[in-house]
């Protein structure tokens, strides 16, 4: 049951959320400045280019198809993880989260190296689907664990078979989680560059990169990026609309979670295939290819373990910093969205999500612009880079924080207040404490994504500082795949740690469900 407060939000919370939102909107402001400087005619001229409609079409097609296929794979996988009798469930859960650790450009590279003929739409769709499935699987599995099978039972007794019963009984319960996951996948696909570029599939992000690359045309790039923002905006609003309806409908059901685990029987083999194959394809193929390259390489350029260690340390520190910033920004927005309704709340939440639809280079440049104008002393320091990660990936935290907060019954807050604790103290002692697994999961999700980030890192990192991603790039850029392998494998290993914790954090969030059932 959603725990909503009806009253107007406290001013401090609203102000904090609006400030967070304004910070998250820096890239949008930057785009406005750029598009403004381009002038109206240039904007119109963009649409005269025969390529632009093709780019938009390709972008939409890719985002839509990747979203659909991740849902098609993620939902059944989540069902198996949450509701089937499985041996070694913990192992499967970790496996399901593992693709998060693989950057799309690495997965794409691995597949391309294995199957050089892969190119175009199908290749991009295939690889992005593989790496993005966990965005759906993890939240849906959590929703399934918290849900009830009571409605399915009713449908069964009313003459429906198991599948029809699921569609009627369980689907409405997990729909918000499916939507949230689909939103992340969709925005991820819109903004991804590395995966699509390697497969030579032309979308808006590749065109933006080209605009910077050959034409040095910042204005054209900004106009294309704005198109991307409009697409992202459409997606975010559509999701909110769909979620709003789902939430309203489902608020009514007050089922104590009663669940049975399904015996798989003859379906065991297909189930195992479904759980194992996407993860194996996303993780094992690139890793294998890289390791093989490592041994095949003719010119093993000098490998300095110290560099690897330093880059690993930087990666961990910077991504942790990014996660902290993202959480700090997302907290007021998530709490607001969890507890209050209204136009302002909706607008704040929408803006918070938009940065995720932007390619890293745009966010990077916007923060160059902003930090030089506002805090020149911090320019090209780790602070600005961590802040950039925070802005870029905050949307991934909003959903988790919103969900975790919404689960905490408001009656607990009321009790704490009558026991003598003010609003902030109550939030800290009760709400934050109970939402902790969800907030931690959100932080991990940001960290794992920030570790893989490249374009903004290149622009904003302190001069001379390397991360695993930049080291990897500087080697693959000159075809030194053998030399790149240790960095790639380390990156996947390091990112696998938060991915692993993530699969566990979600599983452990049941404490609250039990206690408030």
């Amino acid at each position, binding site marked *: 049951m959603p725990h909503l407060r009806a009253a107007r939000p406290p001013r401090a919370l609203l102000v904090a959320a609006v400030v967070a939102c304004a910070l998250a909107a820096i890239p949008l402001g930057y785009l406005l400045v750029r598009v403004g400087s381009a002038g109206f005619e240039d904007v119109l001229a963009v649409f005269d280019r025969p390529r632009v409609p093709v780019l938009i079409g390709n972008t939409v097609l890719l985002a839509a198809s990747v979203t659909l296929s991740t849902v098609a794979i993620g939902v059944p996988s989540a069902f198996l993880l949450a509701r089937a009798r499985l041996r070694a469930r913990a192992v499967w859960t970790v496996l399901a989260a593992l693709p998060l650790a693989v950057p799309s450009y690495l997965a794409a590279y691995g597949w391309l190296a294995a199957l050089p003929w892969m190119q175009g739409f199908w290749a991009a769709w295939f690889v992005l689907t593989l790496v993005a499935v966990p965005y759906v699987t993890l939240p849906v599995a959590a929703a399934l664990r918290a849900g009830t099978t009571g*409605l399915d039972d009713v449908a069964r007794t*009313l003459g429906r078979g198991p599948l029809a019963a699921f569609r009627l009984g369980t689907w409405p319960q997990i729909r918000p989680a499916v939507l949230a996951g689909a939103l992340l996948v969709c925005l991820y696909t819109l903004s991804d560059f590395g995966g699509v570029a390697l497969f030579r599939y032309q979308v808006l992000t590749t065109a933006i990169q080209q605009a910077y690359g050959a034409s040095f045309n910042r204005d054209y790039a900004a106009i294309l990026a704005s198109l991307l923002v409009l697409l992202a905006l459409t997606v975010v609003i559509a999701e909110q609309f769909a979620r709003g309806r789902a939430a309203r409908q489902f608020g009514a059901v007050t089922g104590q979670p009663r669940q049975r685990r399904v015996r798989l029987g003859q379906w065991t083999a297909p189930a195992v295939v479904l759980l194992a194959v996407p993860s194996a394809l996303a993780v094992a193929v690139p890793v294998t290819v890289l390791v093989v390259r490592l041994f095949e390489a003719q010119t093993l350029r000098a490998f300095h373990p110290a560099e690897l260690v330093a880059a690993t340390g930087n990666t961990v520190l910077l991504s942790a910093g990014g996660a902290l910033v993202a959480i700090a920004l997302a907290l007021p927005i998530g709490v607001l969205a969890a507890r209050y309704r209204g136009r302002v709340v909706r607008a704040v939440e929408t803006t918070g999500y938009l940065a995720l639809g932007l390619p890293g280079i745009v966010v990077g440049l916007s923060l160059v612009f902003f930090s030089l104008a506002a805090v020149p002393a911090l320019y090209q320091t780790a602070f600005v880079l961590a802040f950039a990660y925070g802005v870029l990936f905050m949307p991934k935290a909003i959903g988790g924080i919103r969900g975790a907060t919404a689960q905490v019954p408001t009656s607990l807050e009321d009790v704490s207040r009558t026991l003598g604790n003010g609003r902030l103290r109550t939030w800290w002692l009760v709400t934050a404490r109970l939402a902790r697994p969800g907030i931690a999961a959100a932080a991990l999700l940001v960290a794992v994504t920030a570790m893989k980030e490249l374009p903004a890192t290149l622009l904003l990192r302190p001069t001379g500082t390397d991360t695993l991603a930049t080291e990897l790039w500087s080697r693959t850029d000159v075809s030194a795949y053998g030399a790149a392998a240790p960095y790639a494998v380390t990156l996947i290993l390091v990112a696998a740690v938060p991915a692993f914790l993530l699969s566990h954090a979600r599983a452990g969030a049941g404490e609250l469900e039990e206690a408030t059932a």
Partner: protein
Amino acid sequence: MSRLEVRDLVVGYDAADVLRSVSLDVPDGSLLAIVGPSGCGKTTLLRTIAGLVRARAGEIRIGTRMVTTHGIHLAPEKRRIGWVPQDAALFPHLTVAENIAFGLPSARGSAKSARRAATRDDVQRLLALVGLGALGDRLPAQLSGGQAQRVALARALASAPDVVLLDEPFGALDPILRADLRGSVRELLREAGVTGILVTHDQAEALSIADLVGVMRGGELLQLDTPEQVYRRPATPWVAGFVGDAVFLPGTWHGDEVACALGRLPADWVPDDAATASPLEAPVDGASVAVLVRPEELALSPLAADAEAQAVGGPAAVVTGVSYTGHDAMLTVVAGDLRLEARVTAAGLLPVGTRVAVRVTGRVLAYPARA
């Protein structure tokens, strides 16, 4: 519309059995209420009958159809069963009418337009039946708890099931709504002529609504009888305490009487076979027994002085507490070591401190004394 027979049913989830050889027989058209403490297996029994849980052993027969027996398990959707869970479990995204139509056989099969017309009429008839004619277009979120329960019942009845299973359908409602709905559900089931099982936590509800009452404990059915028999002649002391307020006094058996702190009382012997395997015939004179007295069987008469007590036949006692419930009240009475609860009507209400004589009206029951 059909007799329901359950024979030697054994059900378990993981290791231990949750139901241990439960047998029952509900005649066509009657309503069985099942009571028992939390976790005793009530829901499990219903779910097994519905086919939502597989039995380990035993048989379930609905009318002439064997739905569960050795190695056979008919799918729930083929059992012709209506299921009304505690929380109504209406489909939140369907309107009331659509929820009900969901259960209609016409909503499956047959051509679309014919189906629609048939459905509309059927739904209207069912809505009228549960007294919600005007609410067809509402969403479940817009219903009160009682209304939601009625819709759930209509939905379950829509498919013209042979048996309706109700799992604590009134659990979530407030007492007034509950009493109200209880009556109308009973009538509805009778009108529909359908055989039913109702699980409830509330023994008063079970006694008042059902043709038969089953009392469960720890996976076993301790007694299955008419409401009066269950209340008046509980099979075991535990059942006695579960279906109503009860006072147990130690006593000794003397022919058709027992001797206890309240004097020598006419008594019936109830062999507690399940618990002690003692012989069915009455015990020898002088044997220890447990005497069951219900609070409403205690008659209190105010006394002026201690002396009078003996004259009336019971021990002298003092009223130490009053719990008022409107139409009657429970008085706590202390006589020496003895602490008794006596139910009195508004007219018989006595203030705390009143000295009273305690007398037992009617015959009491004697059970084997616990070791």
